[in-house]
Each structure stands twice: as structure tokens, then as C-alpha cells.
């Protein structure tokens, strides 16, 4: 009886140990291999990797092309940017010359007057005013006005009776001529021996010059219509 009990106990123990080993083995296997077949999985992974590799190569080629295009663009646009800047400066210079914009800058104010007792006809001395402007231009001035009238490309100084008309506006003494430019060059261009100032003094005018760090010159308000002149395009032979 006792012997039988032993036998049963041993059998139970062996079964238990076998059961534990079995379950442990099964678990380990499924942990390590997963639920799918390892060979199949390898093939799948291989395929995915190959696909990714293709994608990577495609992107690399695309990136190279795009980078090249961008480099070219960069150059083109850098040139364009520089060109634009240069053109803006050129336009600014042309606008200043045109006289259609208010301008300011350092320069000289020249006041032409005469003693009230002396009789001087401004009309008959208009050539001296023209010469004065010519000598101001000789000094490289960039803007001139006569009693507020901007001297433009189409400004004429016309003697009328005893006065002069500038841009069609009548003017009498004193004349205030403003010039923007280098003040010392202006002075030396006007004041040399036998120069325009001494000529004006000789016929009885008084000239005063005053330098200023900032002179304002108003724009010309009129308009110029062209009826005869036609621009010659660059390709045309002159």
C-alpha cells in the first residue's frame, strides 16, 4: 500500500517536471521566432529593404537635380538682384536730372541784385544769367533753380520788356540762384579773374554767395510734350 503511494507520487512529480519543461520550451520558441516562419519573414524584410533602397536612390537623384536647379537659380537671381539695384540707382540719377522731383543737398545760394539807384535791365543781361548757369554746370552741379524755378532740360530764359521769364514765370531782381553741388568747386568756377562774377560786377550787379549744407530745390511742375523728336532705338544706325 505504501509502495503504491510512492509510485503515484513519483509519477506525479515526473509529469509535473515534464509539463514545466514542455511549456517553457514552447514559450521560448515562440518568443525567439515569433508567430511567423522565420524564412518568410527574412524574405519580406529583404524585399522592404530593397524597396527602401530604390526609394532612397530615387530621392538622391531628385535631390541632386533640384540642388543643381537651385544653384542655377541662385546665380540667375543674384545677377537679377544686382541688376535691379543698379537700375534703381540709375533711375534715381535720371529722376534727379529730370527736375521733376524735389531734391536737396549741399550747395551754394547765389543772390544777384543791384543797387536801387542804378538802372539795370535784367532783360538785356540775360546772357550773363545763362553764362552763370553754364559755369555752374561746369562746376558739376546737379540741380539749379532760379527764384524757385527748376532749371530743366527745356528751361529757357527769355528777356521780356525789362525782366526775364524762366519757365514762363516772370522774374525781377533780386535773383536767387540755388545750386546743389560741391561748394568750393562752384566758387572757383564763378570767381576766377575775368569770370562770370567779375563780368556781372563790371556791369553793376552785386553778387553774394552763401554755402549751405542743405539746400532744397523744388521740382518743376510743368509738362513737356514731344511733337517732333523720336527716339532712335539702339539697334538702329545713327
Amino acid at each position, binding site marked *: 500500500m505504501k509502495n503504491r503511494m510512492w509510485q503515484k507520487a513519483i509519477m506525479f512529480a515526473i509529469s509535473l517536471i515534464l509539463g514545466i519543461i514542455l511549456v517553457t520550451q514552447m514559450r521560448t520558441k515562440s518568443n525567439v521566432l515569433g508567430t511567423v516562419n522565420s524564412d518568410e519573414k527574412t524574405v519580406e524584410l529583404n524585399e522592404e529593404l530593397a524597396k527602401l533602397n530604390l526609394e532612397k536612390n530615387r530621392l538622391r537623384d531628385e535631390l541632386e537635380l533640384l540642388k543643381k536647379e537651385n544653384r542655377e537659380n541662385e546665380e540667375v537671381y543674384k545677377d537679377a538682384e544686382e541688376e535691379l539695384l543698379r537700375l534703381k540707382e540709375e533711375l534715381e540719377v535720371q529722376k534727379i536730372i529730370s527736375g521733376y522731383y524735389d*531734391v536737396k543737398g549741399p550747395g551754394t545760394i547765389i543772390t544777384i541784385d543791384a543797387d536801387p539807384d542804378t538802372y539795370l535791365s535784367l532783360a538785356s543781361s540775360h546772357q550773363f544769367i545763362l553764362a552763370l548757369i553754364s559755369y555752374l554746370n561746369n562746376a558739376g552741379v546737379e540741380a539749379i533753380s532760379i527764384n524757385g524755378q527748376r532749371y530743366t532740360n527745356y528751361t529757357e530764359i527769355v528777356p521780356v520788356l525789362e525782366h526775364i521769364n524762366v519757365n514762363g514765370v516772370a522774374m525781377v531782381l533780386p535773383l536767387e540762384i540755388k545750386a546743389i553741388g560741391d561748394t568750393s568747386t562752384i566758387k572757383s568756377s564763378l570767381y576766377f579773374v575775368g569770370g562770370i562774377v567779375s563780368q556781372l560786377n563790371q556791369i553793376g550787379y552785386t553778387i553774394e554767395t552763401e554755402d549751405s549744407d542743405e539746400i532744397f530745390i523744388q521740382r518743376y511742375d510743368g509738362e513737356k510734350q514731344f511733337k517732333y*523728336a523720336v527716339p532712335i532705338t539702339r539697334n538702329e544706325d545713327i
Partner: protein
Amino acid sequence: MSTIKKSLNIIIFVLVFLAAAAIVNGADAGIDEYTIYTIKNANKYEHSIEEMKLLVNNMQNAVDSEKKAIADYKASKYQDDINEINSQIEQIKFYNGFTAVRGPGIMVRVSDNISEDPELDIMERIVHDVDIVVLLNDLKAAGAEAIEVNGKRIINISEVVCAGPLIRVNGEVIPAPFVIIAIGDMDELYDAVTEEGTYAYELKNTYGMEVVAAQGYNLTVREFRGINYETKYAEIIKEGEK
């Protein structure tokens, strides 16, 4: 009885042994060296795939940013701006005399009085800078749209000044005879240099200078050649400033 029992025990023992062996064999199920290698490989693959995915992702981002840069360049309007400013410059240059023009007008030739007239001082027989300046002004007053003297375009920043026996215009010296070309109304321009009482008439009839005027239907006046003219002192006052 005891023999039956003994043999039964032996049978059970054998059965349990077989079962254990079968279970162990089944549980092992192909885990050999090759399997382990495959598993390691699979892990490696997975790792590579992760890395590759990251790389592809980064590259995709780089491609996107390059594409955006290209789109930005395309959207910028440099060329439009350049064209716009260029047409503005062309217009203002025409006005300012930086463009060669053609049209009807007159040609005037002025040169010194070469006769030995004892009544006139030598200085009175010579064409002076101021004579040219006044003639140019008379032509402007007669509506000249473009003027040149010996090929030098006269604009509002041109100087016409004495340079010894020569005259300096636009920084270059020119000798007599002075040939002035003006474009505008032919008759008005012609009258401005020929009618009695005009400055040109005086030069010719009082001072004996040679003043010859001729009309032309298609004259050419060259452009001002200070192409690189720059302003250093004057600047435009912007709206609202002052």
C-alpha cells in the same frame, strides 16, 4: 498479480519516457544553428530598415525644402521689376536727353569773322562761349526738343564754357565752326536764328560772323554721352519728408 503490476509499471514508465522525448523533440522544433542565424539576420534587417526609413524621410524633407526654394524663386518678380524700371528709365532718359533722337529741325553753323574788319576788335570777331549759350537758349525758347553742338548733346547739366581758343561742352573741347542741330518746328527754329533782332542775326550782321542756317526734315541729334553720370550731392526728397 504482482507480475501484472510490475509489467504495468514498466509500461507506464516507458510511455512517460516516450511522451517526454516526443515533447522535448516537438518543443525544439527546428531551432538549430541556422535558425538562430536567420533570427539574428532578421534583427539586423529590421535595424537597417529603421535606419533606411529615417534616411529616406530626411531626404524627402530635403527634396521638399529644395522644391520650396525653387517655388520661391519662381514667385519672386525680379524680371517684372527689371522690365518695369527699364521702361521707366527709357522714358526719363528720352526726356533727359540720354537717348539719340531724330526728327525735323534746323542746322546752324557758326564761325568766327575771318575778315580783317578794322572797326571790330579781334575779341568781337570771335565766337565766344556765351554766344553759343545764347543761341542754344534761343533755340530752346523756339521749342527745340533736342539740341547738340558738334555732336555734343546739350542738356540741363551741360556746360558750354570757354577753353582758350576752343569751347568745352560736356567735358570735351570742340573747335569752331560750331554746328548746332536742333529738332523741333522747322520754321520756328529757323526764324529764331535768322529773323532781324535775334541774337544770331546780330552775330551775323553786326559782328560779321558766319551764321548759316538750314532746315532739314530728318535730322539726328545724338544722346548725352555721360552714360556713367552719377549724382553725388543731390538726393530726392521723399514724400512727407522736408
